[in-house]
Structures are given as structure tokens and as C-alpha cells.
């Protein structure tokens, strides 16, 4: 258990560094799509909610988990959809319409 926690801390730290390096390079032009995309990716929390509901260990877990899946799934679908809609609008000078 304790070894797992330490491993998790390493993973968190490395991911934070990667995040800083990768996201610093994102053009300010695309900061709105960046936020909607990271928001969609963040909805990966849905995985935890699905296991919670699927295991069905308590009524509370099923009810809360189900609401959690609905909330996260709406972020997945809405987040990817709006990010792609926004990015489709960004066209370079040459490629008009």
C-alpha cells in the first residue's frame, strides 16, 4: 500500500512536469480549445465512477456513482465536441472555405 502511494506521488510529479512543458508550448491562439480539451480529458474520472457503480457494493455508491457517470460523460461528449467545433474554425490564410 505504502509503496503504491510513493509510486503514485512519482507519477503525479512527472505528469505535472510533462504538463507544464507540453502546455507551455500551446499557442495562446488555442487557449480556449486547450481548456475545453483538458476538461474532456479530466472526465476520465468516469472510469472510477463506472467501477463504483458496477461493483454495486452499496446503494449510496450506486446512486452517487450513477450521477457521477452522467456528469463525467456529459463532459466527455460535450468537451470533445466543442473542442473540435472550435478547432475546425481555425483556418490559415491560404485555405479559405
Amino acid at each position, binding site marked *: 500500500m505504502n509503496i503504491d502511494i510513493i509510486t503514485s506521488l512519482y507519477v503525479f510529479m512527472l505528469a505535472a512536469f510533462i504538463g507544464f512543458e507540453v502546455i507551455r508550448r500551446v499557442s495562446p491562439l488555442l487557449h480556449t480549445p486547450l481548456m475545453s480539451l483538458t476538461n474532456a480529458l479530466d472526465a*476520465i474520472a468516469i472510469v472510477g465512477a463506472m467501477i463504483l457503480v458496477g461493483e454495486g457494493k*452499496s446503494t449510496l455508491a450506486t446512486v452517487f456513482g450513477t450521477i457521477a457517470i452522467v456528469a463525467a460523460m456529459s463532459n466527455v461528449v460535450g468537451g470533445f465536441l466543442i473542442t473540435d467545433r472550435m478547432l475546425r474554425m481555425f483556418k490559415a490564410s491560404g485555405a479559405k472555405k
Partner: protein
Amino acid sequence: MIRSEYIIELAYLVATALFILALKWLSSPSTARRGVRAGELGMLMAIVGTLYHHGIVDYRWIAIALVLGTIIGVPLGMVHMTAVPQRTALSHAFGALCVTLVGTAEYYLHAPQVDRFMMAVLGLEVILGSLTFTGSLMAAGKLQEVLPQRPITFQGQNLVNLVILALAVALAACLVVSPGQTWLFPVIVVIGLVFGVLMIIPIGGADMPTVISLLNSYAGLSAAAMGFVLDSKLLIIAGALDGASGFILSVNMSKAMNRSFTNVLFGAFGQAQAGVAGTQQARPVRSATADEAAAILAAASKVVIVPGYGMAVAQAQHKVRELFDALTRRGVDVKFAIHPVAGRMPGHMNVLLAEADIPYDHLMGMEDINGDFPQTDVALVIGANDVTNPAARNDASSPIYGMPILDVDKARTVMVIKRGMSPGFAGIDNPLYYLDKTLMLFGDARAFVGGIVRELAGGDHH
């Protein structure tokens, strides 16, 4: 581990790589859509992989919830581009809701056998999650203008907020010591929810870009905390990426507003410091009509357009595109100067202009365009005010002194489309309007730009 678990973990591993690639490809507009595809594929793999999890015995509620979430998600993905900031705030709220609910359920499944580290992380998860939930709802309400945009402040507000937050942390610490005190848990959640509301009410509309970024960061960190609790590396990484992204954007935004982080959180800015600007006598300004403006623009060789949120409010972006086309056809070099806080969230103005079909290589950030103003014939300001105020550069007594601005006043001629002489969001008078080289174009942004376009199209003027 049994075999199916290895397969699921491998799916998560690939999903993690795809998530990082998604953000990497977002660095340039030419590869950005590939990034979305990568993110979608990663998400699909993770969700499908999870369905094979050996512990899942009942699929009914999962299926219902996935369908319901999709039904809610589609309209949220189809909102108008001007509504993207409130949609984003709402999705931060949904993400935080998910994290808070799962954290609560996990606690009651395991209490009182929760070890100390887990309990501390669970506490962090639900405090961050619950405050982000109500905070984001408040932010969305303010952006949608169903809640008053003006800051609500009272005496000792910061102290009250700090005490409330400290109370939540102290109760969480009690749970770390004795995780069996199950009644404490909902109290912590409620305090978090209350704090989220109190955190946002003193914040005014102009500071929303910073607040949204900050809430983005909190949402990410709470998800990462959930990853620790569930021992899910995928969730830790996704949360860390989101947290890092929100953090970078918050720092960008507070720099662009010349505010420190703590000032954003505890400053209750946006509150009218209008008195500081002093009494404004009716100083003389020069104004011009649409055909005069058209003649000056047609004679220019380099024009920089400075759009502000007022342009979006007036729905003028499509007329601005027509102006861009008309000038470009005449061989005028037209660029757009975008201040980082030009919209209601980071990068918002770029999206609004891209939607109006303005090519993105003409959209310039503040650092890239400021050196160009001395060589610019005409700077045309549409619906922007404070971000063009030279007082930020040269008047130490101005409330916005030190804020990075677009150096519009260095252009040879400045034209400002404005409804009237009322001061902007921050209630500060703008000396730019009284310069000899400045022409005020009074009127509605859309109508006025339309007028200029008509004049330009009306053949070469007399």
C-alpha cells in the same frame, strides 16, 4: 493480477500516452484536430477497457448513465461560441461533482478502515471538489448573467472565507486521526460547497478569465487526488495535466491583468475604483464619420484592428471580417491585436474571430504585435477600452498602472469605435481618446463597421 487486469492496464497506458499526445498536438492549429482525435481514442479505450473490469457485475446503471450523460453532453457541445466561457465553467462544475460524489461514496465504503494518507487525500479531494462545484456554478451564473456580475463584498470577507476554509481543513484533519467519525464527512462537503459560493461572490465580471482558469486547475487537482484514492495512474496523470494547464493559464491571466495570484483570490477586484479616476470634465475629442474613416483606412498600408469584448457583444465580428476582406483586397496589410484578456476566458477572442472566418495567421498576441504599432498607419479599436489605456504605462496613480497593454497610442492614427464617452469596465478614463491623432467613431460597432465597409465598396471615393 489476473489476465483481464493486465489488458485493462495496458489500455489505460495507451490512453495516457494518447492524452499527452493530444495536448502536444494542440501546440499548433495545423495539428490540433489530430490532438482531439487522439484524446477521443484514448477516452474510448479507457471506457471500453473499464467495462471489462472483473469487479463490474451490474451494467444497467452504467448504461443508463452513459446514455443520459451523452444526451446532456451533446447540447453542451453545440453552444454558441460566445457562450463557451459559461459552458466551460459548467463543465468544471460537472467534473468537480463527479469527483466529490465518487470520493464520498469511497469514504463510506471503506470507513472506518481508511488509512491516514488515504483519508488526507480523500479530504483534499472532496474539499477541492465541492468548492470547485459551487464556485464554477457561480462563475457560470455570472457569465450567463443570471447572477449579478458586480462583485458582492462585505466587511471582513477575506477573514470569514479563510476561517471557513480552515474549518474544513481542520475537520478533515480530525477524520485523518479518527476516520470512524462518519458524521464529519458530510459537514466537510457542505463547508466546501459554501466556501465555493463565498469565494466567487466578491469577484467581478472582468476577472472571470482568471477565475475560470483557477477553477480549471482545482478541478484537475481534485481529479488527481481521486486518482490517488483509487490507485489509478491514468486519473492521476489526467488530473495533473489538467491542473498544470489551469495553473499556467491562471498565471498568464493574472499577469495580463497585473494582479498577483493572492490578489485575484482575496482582492475583491472589479469593485469600482471609479472615484480614483477623478472627475472627468468634458475634454474635447475629435470624431469622424464612416466615410472619413473609410478614406483613411483605404489610404493606409498597414492597419491593426484591436477587438475587445464589446465587439462580440455587438455581434460585429462578421462585419469586421467584411472590413478585413475589403481592406485586404485593396492591398492593405491587416492584423488583429489580441490582448490575453480580450474575451471572457483565455483565448476566447481568437475563437470568436476564427468563427467569423478570419485566418488565424492574422491574429497576433500582445507580445508579437506591440513592436509593430510605431509602423502602423491606423490602429482601429473596436469595443476595447482598458487594454488600450496608455495610463497603464505612464500614470503611476492610475488603478491599472503596470497592466500590460496594447501600445495602440504609438500608431500614426488611432480610431476608436465606441457608443459614447462612458468609461470602461474598470470605470477608468482613457487618455487615448483625447490624443490629437485619435478619431472617435461614435456608434454601434456593427453598424459603424458596416458603414465603413459600404463606403469602401462604393468604389474609389471621389
